[in-house]
């Protein structure tokens, strides 16, 4: 089982340092990593990721520059591009596929794209090898979850974790560590979702300390660490020194 799914914001602390961070992640044994595309209106993000996106945009981390920076990188975990829809729509499906091809991006997680919208756009990306990761939140009942998992299907064991997992949102609200997430209902939730399918599950929102990450692993799921890592990197802490104690 993949022990950790880290999230970083592209362009924060800088675009220049991104290839080195990704190489470090790979050297640490990180299999997959979510990379955030900075957006002007991140409606699902808390203060830490809002600020990181804002800093990255101020420093010129446009979607095109981010994808150009990723092009040709081989020393990198598999990447999941974590983004809002509008920048992708403006690029367009054809050009987006072209831009993604030379990068380590294996899948997309588009926060504000339910599977009922832009179906043609999504289908084209999927057939080009860029599936959308399904999100399951505390408001998603099991019946709805079943439909979501079918409409954004697991491509199967021959494919990497980055393309297979479903993202379980651990609590209501936005990303960030403002309040510790109560893990008891999360455990029940994960157990219920595991009865629906055998695909890997990642659990995120409000997880940061090693104990919480360990508790998620004990559920048989991969913990996501985002805001706490972004905050540490922005404060100058090393990728390895922050993540080492948090790897199983």
């Amino acid at each position, binding site marked *: 089982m993949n022990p950790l799914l880290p999230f970083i914001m592209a362009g924060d602390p800088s675009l220049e340092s991104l290839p080195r961070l990704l190489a470090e992640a790979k050297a640490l044994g990180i299999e997959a990593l979510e990379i955030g595309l900075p957006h*002007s*209106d991140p409606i699902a993000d808390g203060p830490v990721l809002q600020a990181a996106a804002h800093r990255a945009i101020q420093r010129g981390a446009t979607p095109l520059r981010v994808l150009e920076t990723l092009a040709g990188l081989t020393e990198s975990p598999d990447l999941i591009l974590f983004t809002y829809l*509008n920048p992708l729509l403006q690029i367009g499906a054809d050009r987006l596929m072209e831009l993604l091809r030379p990068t380590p991006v294996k899948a997309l997680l588009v926060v504000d794209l339910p599977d009922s919208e832009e179906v043609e756009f999504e289908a084209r990306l999927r057939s080009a090898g860029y599936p959308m990761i399904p999100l*399951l*939140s505390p*408001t*998603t009942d099991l019946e709805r979850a079943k439909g979501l998992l079918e*409409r954004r299907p697991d491509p199967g064991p021959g494919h990497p974790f980055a393309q297979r997992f479903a993202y379980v*949102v651990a609590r209501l609200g936005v990303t960030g560590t403002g309040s510790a997430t109560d893990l008891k209902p999360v455990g029940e939730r994960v157990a219920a979702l595991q009865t629906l399918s055998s695909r890997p599950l990642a659990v995120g929102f409000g997880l940061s300390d090693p104990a919480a990450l360990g508790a998620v692993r004990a559920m048989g799921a991969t913990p996501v660490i985002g805001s706490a890592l972004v905050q540490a990197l922005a404060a100058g802490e090393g990728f390895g020194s922050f993540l080492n104690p948090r790897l199983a």
Partner: protein
Amino acid sequence: MRATNMNEGDRPLASLPLRPPRAPHSVSGHSPATASAFLLPTRFGAGGLGGCYAPETLMQPLLDLEEAFRKAVEDPSFETELKSELRHFVGRPTPLTSAPRLAAKLGLKALFLKREDLTHTGAHKINNAMAQALLARRMGKTEIIAETGAGQHGVAAAAACARLGLSCTVYMGVVDMARQAPNVARMRLFGTQVVPVEAGQGTLKEAVNEALRAWAARCDKAHYILGSALGPHPFPTLVRTFQTVIGEEARAQVLEQTGALPDSVIACAGGGSNGLGLLVPFLGDALHRFAVEAGGHGSALGEHAARLDGGRMGVLHGCKTLLLQDQHGHTAETASISAGLDYPALGPELAALALDGQIEVLRASDDQALEAATWLCESEGILPALESSHALALLPELAKRGFATVLLGLSGRGDKDLATYQSKLGI
């Protein structure tokens, strides 16, 4: 209309019974292969604007909201309740006032003002805020979240919540809090918590971002009263359904007063609650329909909030519509002297009607709006809101184009803008 609770002397509220849109410009199933579980049309116009681009956490709350809305508008007791609040609390029907001196000054034969400025709390926003607050109560929600730009929607939500005993939190950009300070005080007097939003430009867009985040955190207990005809489905449909009372009344009143329809109808448009509210009931009529956007202080991106010319199709705050944005798909900055029009996206139904040629969209600059406000003050003794002044500013243009009888939506009163009028007009 169904006759319920009609006491002698009561004049009918022309908008009821409530009718969610089934107009020809609404199309459903724009994407035939969708798995959408919504039952009402989610898209507008030939271009299929609107939709529901929401994070998964909000999808079930939005489905629940649509269901509650559908049941409410079919339930006579909701109609009775809403009608009673609109009459006895909001002060509907609002008058249609003839403005002969201003008409003569501008070269029009006749000018009629639909007086939303005379509603309780001073703008059309209360029509929707009260209706959604009643809906929230039916849904068993105890908390209300709202965003506000000019503060009129915030004040309306605050008043409705105080009346119905719901707790209310309003998100407002810090720049708007400064320029609409009287409305901040009014909300606080009504017991509402006003949360300053410092991000970005500190205006309506950031307030909506924060309200959406707050709703995602509290959606099990809270209802979000969106104030404009935008956001993810079903909000655009809810808001236009609850606001068309404006145009339904105005249409009946102008027929009653003059025996004929005017040759043009005009309203200002930020998101579109006022624009759709006035113009939609006139869609089947042979007359010209105008919406006026904020021209700000220039024509470059960032200097205005004129989405029709300046915008490209994009997704913001849950819907696809004309959006002011840069080449990267980041939302552009906007500028307007009027906080209520200072928003980067045109509501999807209004944008669809504009693109399909049913409504002509014009723009008025900050300076034109300020000057137009003085005309109405001096000629008719009415102080308009800065938003409504944008519609007034286009009257000379209408006269020049040969329109003679105009019905104008006076969306709100200008008391909240006194500080701006004083400083800009040197009075």
